[in-house]
């Protein structure tokens, strides 16, 4: 009896294996969907649509990619769904935002962690920057920090919610300067946080480089510092990094965006995607559209992303430990 069950189990697993091999060989035979855990029209959605527009090409995935939005609770709704309900057959990809989902998993109350997903490739990086209104009396990050040191808790900093890149940058800024500031999370994302700066509701704000660049072009803000390892030569060659200004704030708050699949996806499919997807991101038309929108393109391979995820996990666990 036992033997029979065992035999059946083996037969079943062979069958299952057989079918998955067949899948991997033919993959992809139908359109692929990409789950974006933010609303249509947001930066992540908008960029995901651009970088996947060449997917149907002969050299790439040969099948078109469809974007599916599952917004809510700062991305938690979408990633919860992706970790627990998404099929791991290679036809459901997801967009990730680092440091958001790692920080949220450390905070707790969600059903995912960095181990729930397998990265495929990274397409973009959007560093956090410090902005002040155009008429602000602060012209350098040093002046702002000096004021914050002299007046603990008086500097209000707007940003897009909790446990997102902006929040991490604010925490790092406080830690590196030793000055206490009031971080004001806004509902309604980076746009609402930027409005608070331009309207003078807050003294300063943390925002995305791409949005801040645009706001500066429109003559609304000054950009004081960028939280990255190097200056952004393409868009903001004149803005110093925190490091250059003498503050130990690294690139841990940089918003990395890329594609991933749920854990348990066939390794053959992962390998195939990891090979083709970066090439798709490098297409000239993708670059042109991303540049046009002021969105920095940063293509990283699967191996590089795996290392980046692991580094963030370690660092953020330490940074957020003090918060709980």
């Amino acid at each position: 009896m036992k033997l029979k069950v065992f035999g059946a189990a083996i037969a079943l697993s062979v069958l299952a294996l057989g079918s998955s091999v067949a899948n991997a060989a033919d993959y992809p035979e139908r359109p692929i969907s990409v789950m974006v855990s933010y609303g249509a029209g947001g930066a992540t959605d908008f960029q995901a649509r651009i970088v996947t527009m060449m997917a149907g090409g002969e050299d790439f995935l040969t099948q078109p990619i469809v974007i599916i939005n599952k917004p809510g609770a700062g991305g938690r709704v979408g990633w919860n769904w992706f970790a627990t309900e998404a099929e791991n057959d290679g036809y459901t990809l997801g967009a990730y935002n680092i440091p958001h989902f790692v920080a949220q998993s450390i905070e707790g109350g969600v059903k995912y962690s960095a181990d729930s997903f397998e990265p495929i490739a990274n397409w973009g990086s959007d560093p956090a920057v410090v902005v002040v209104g155009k008429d602000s009396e602060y012209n350098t990050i040093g002046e702002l920090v000096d004021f914050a040191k002299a007046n603990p808790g008086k500097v209000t900093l707007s940003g897009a919610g909790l446990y997102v890149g902006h929040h991490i940058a604010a925490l790092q800024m406080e830690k590196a300067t030793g000055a206490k500031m009031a971080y004001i999370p806004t509902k309604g994302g980076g746009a609402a946080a930027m409005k608070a700066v331009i309207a003078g509701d807050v003294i300063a704000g943390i925002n995305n480089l791409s949005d801040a660049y645009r706001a500066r072009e429109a003559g609304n803000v000054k950009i004081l510092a960028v939280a990255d390892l190097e200056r952004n030569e393409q868009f903001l060659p004149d803005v110093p990094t925190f490091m250059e200004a003498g503050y130990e704030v690294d690139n841990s708050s940089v918003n990395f965006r890329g594609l991933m699949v749920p854990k348990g996806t066939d390794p053959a499919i992962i390998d195939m995607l990891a090979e083709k997807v970066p090439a798709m991101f490098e297409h000239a038309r993708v670059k042109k559209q991303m540049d046009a929108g002021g969105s920095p393109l940063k293509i990283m391979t699967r191996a590089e992303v795996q290392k980046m995820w692991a580094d963030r996990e370690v660092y953020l666990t330490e940074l957020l430990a003090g918060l709980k």
Partner: protein
Amino acid sequence: MEFLQYFGGVFEPLSFALLVFGTIGGLILGATPGLSPTMAVALLIPFTFQLQPTQGLILLGAAYTATVAGGAVSAILLKIPGAPANIATALDGHEMAKAGQGAKALHVSFLASGVGGIIGVFLLIFLTPVLAKWALAFGPSHLFWMAILGVTIIGSLDSKSFVKGLLSGCLGFWLSMIGYDDIQGAQRFIFTDALTGGVNVITALIGIFAIPQVIDMFAKGRQPMSVSAITIEKQSLGDSLKLLFQNIKALSIGTVIGSIVGLIPGVGGQIAGLVSYDQSKKFSKHREKYGTGHPEGVIAAESANNAMVGPSLVPLLTLSIPGSPTAAVLLGGLLIHGIFPGSDLFENHPQVAWTFINSMLIGQVLMVIFGIWIAGYAARVAQVPTAIMASCVTVLAVFGAYSVQQSMGDVYIMATLGIAMFFLEKFGFSAAPLVLGLILGPIAESNFIQGSMIANAMDGPAAYFLFGPLNLFLIALVFASIAYSFLMSRRQSAVSLSEPSSEVGGAQ
């Protein structure tokens, strides 16, 4: 008058074809429950990848204008508001449709939309610099008081009883608290995964408006076939125009309030229709007719929600700040062509900016023409037998709730809220105040908390919330609104007390 030079761009063959396509497509998408203007515009963005910037924007602008107006179709015929902007339209519009006046309701709704919309776009053209300052003037404390001002109208909105209206509003407030709170990081009332993201307004809207009437229809279906054939009244365009101008007061109130409220980032679009419905009711001589199929209500609501379209783009076009979710999507549509809204747009790409704005103007006219054209056919929906109608509405409700964020969870939430609303209505509670609570809750809460955080870093909450000219003005409005409602309800009860006695007196 710079904009006049750029009308030519709108009438180029491809541009005009896109404008027509965007308008018709927008009307259809808008009439489909669950497909809000924001989503309609987002769906069209990939199409603009292949177009010139100007043409892409024409398509998006036309779709935005038409979806806002198209939402009135399902609100009037099915009592499913396509978007929060159309809630107030459903209150009187659906009553009119049930009485066979669907064509009339659709006519005035499209005409009012057109008038409001055109005035709104003219405001965008002529007063943009002034309006931009006004849009920025609203900080957290002011938005908080705006939301409270909205709360004061909850009680008087579509409810026989002031107290039950307020209670419905409270329920809406409570529903709005469900989910993950992004400002304080708290998880509230999340018993199941489907509630992590909170109750989506559109999902709730579909459930509490559509489901109770579906249940009612099925209940009637069990009765013997007493076919109450509704005769559909024919409506000529001339009569509709006459009706519109007879109600010029409601039209002006709607347009003015829609334009003002539409400007305020983050608040505008959702409440413009409801606020002007309420105000026009307060200023009307026929207050008691509101909610029973009174054209004034439709006119006030629809002129407001289209008047809001133009001004709602002011913060986006001048300051590059999207003031509404739809504006955020439009921003994406601009960026993809390397055009940055703000001074860059008007100085370096005036062709794009003005052609876009002009196309919204022409789009309003086209929207009225196509809207009127379909109105006569669409109104026949009221003749569909109840059982078939109920099934269709159920399908649309499920489809609409699912399509908001591709989630079955939303369908369950929609059904639960709908069934609960059926019983609540039996006890005299109503749907509109509940939805208004759901919309205003997050605005009041998040702005109060943000304001408090900012105030604590400054001079304390009292100074921040209670002083400053704009705060004081809004607080005064809040008190005036409460006092007015109170006086009205006293006068009404006085009237209803004296009326029966006079009748009795007459009989003797």
